[in-house]
């Protein structure tokens, strides 16, 4: 019964490349409908962990299930049941907004009818009615990012992975983006997000911090700030992530 409320169950998940351990036996759960912040310095192992959780990379050892499927043995089922968006958004620049929606709807296996309905809803929600036939190429960065996010959840996945979704976006659009994230969780979608804007970590229900391949801590932002006696997540992060500079 417990496990039904967990979208990710990760037990000793490990990835090694040669004699380098990128992800070192990380163990954690992500609950249904929560916003889970996945923090870490560059090179801490975040991307490798996300690749394993999204079925793109098989683990060296350990076990993880995502949306009920095993990452090692059922990667294709995982891909169907998750959404993914990265800082290098995956929209096709030389297709229009509408065409991108139709394309990804098809990839995610929606029927024509579903694509039509979803497409209308999505365009209306983002207020893009007047621009639906515009090429993605010329759109402002913030629009692209909001569109990419909405498309990443068009198939109503149980979880969406967001890899630095707000990098470089202006401060108002960044906040609007987080509005979309909140709305998605109200639909029951679980959000797994990485960011370098540490005040955004405070919008998460729970936050984990990776340092050199280890999952060093995991708790609500409030508890982490209390535990390390810091006023904000930026200071918590700086405190935890100071690593030996010469270690490479």
């Amino acid at each position, binding site marked *: 019964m417990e496990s039904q409320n967990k979208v990710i169950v990760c037990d000793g998940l490990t990835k090694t490349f040669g004699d380098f351990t990128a992800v070192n036996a990380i163990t954690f759960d992500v609950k249904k409908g929560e916003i889970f912040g996945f923090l870490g310095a560059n090179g801490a192992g975040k991307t490798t962990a996300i690749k394993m959780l999204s079925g793109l990379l098989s683990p060296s050892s350990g076990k993880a299930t995502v949306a009920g499927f095993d990452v090692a043995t059922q990667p294709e089922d995982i891909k169907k049941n998750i959404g993914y968006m990265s800082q290098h958004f995956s929209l096709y620049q030389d297709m229009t907004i509408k065409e991108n929606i139709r394309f990804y709807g098809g990839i995610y296996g929606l029927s024509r009818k579903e694509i039509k309905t979803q497409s209308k809803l999505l365009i209306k929600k983002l207020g893009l009615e007047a621009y639906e036939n515009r090429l993605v190429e*010329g759109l*402002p960065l*913030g629009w692209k990012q909001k569109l990419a996010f909405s498309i990443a959840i068009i198939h109503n996945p149980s979880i969406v992975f967001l890899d630095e979704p707000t990098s470089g976006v202006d*401060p108002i659009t960044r906040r609007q983006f987080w509005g979309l994230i909140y709305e998605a969780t109200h639909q029951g979608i679980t959000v797994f997000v990485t960011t370098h804007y540490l005040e955004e970590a405070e919008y998460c229900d729970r936050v984990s911090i990776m340092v050199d391949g280890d999952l060093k801590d995991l708790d609500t932002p409030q508890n982490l700030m209390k535990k390390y006696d810091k006023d904000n997540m930026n200071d918590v992060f700086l405190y935890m992530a100071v690593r030996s500079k010469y270690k490479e």
Partner: protein
Amino acid sequence: MLEFKNISKSYEGQEALKDISFDVKKGELFGLIGPDGAGKSTLFRILTTVLLADNGTALFNGHDVVDDYKYVRKNVGYMPGKFSLYQDLSVKENLNFFATIFGTSIKENYDLIKDIYQQLEPFENRRAGALSGGMKQKLALSCALIHKPMVLVLDEPTFGVDAVSRKEFWDMLKSLKAKGVTIIVSTPYMDEASLCDRVALIQKGKILQIDTPKGITDSFEKILYTIKTNKIYESLKVLNDIPEVSNAFSFGQIIHVYAENELNIEKVNNILRENGIEDPKIELGEATIEDCFMDLMVSQNLEEDGVAE
């Protein structure tokens, strides 16, 4: 040291820079603060003579960047936004290469890069492509410095870089400034503005404001309140519906509310409580650069959703 006069540039009808004018003084650490697409890189390309402006002039230590491009190229150290070193050369080979094309040697100017390069020395023979992000950034900075430039132009050196490495990078800039190098640096991170002597806030090819960081925050015209509640998203919705509130934005777990006139705190408290928000705590607060940026964006109608023909 740098003078921009009425610089404009369009790409296929889209205005990237609109009539930009400002100066950077000798020895200054000047920040260009704005999101992606604001025009920062375009301005830097014009300054470093790799792009021509449609209108306006730029002077580099008194030399026109178009007529006297050779002078500029000799005296500028440019670190573009994209990692542009030779991935298949080693750390040392890259540095040697850049020293040689500028007619100097690593030895001659080692002093300037010593603090930065020392951290790279253990990996001197590693290929640049195999370095971590933070190390690549240090190598790129070393290569931009090796000919002892008058001006260092850094295009988003900390983009996508974690908070720890960002802090280290700014410490390096501070020590370079102390050695007399004029630095112009762009960044999308508003919190880095406070580390500059002066900044220009830029959005959509337009400069919103130029001043010292303190000058900018001091000139914030509205009254700012900070509110702590247990429900950020719900509180924002409620607050933005209050007519006396100009705008409410979240800053992590704290909400910043801007108002033209003093708010009746009791009334705001009651409205929040009526909407199921328990125990809100409202206090007067001080504006940050990010507050100023957002307020200027709204008042100058430069939000992304307000445009696109």
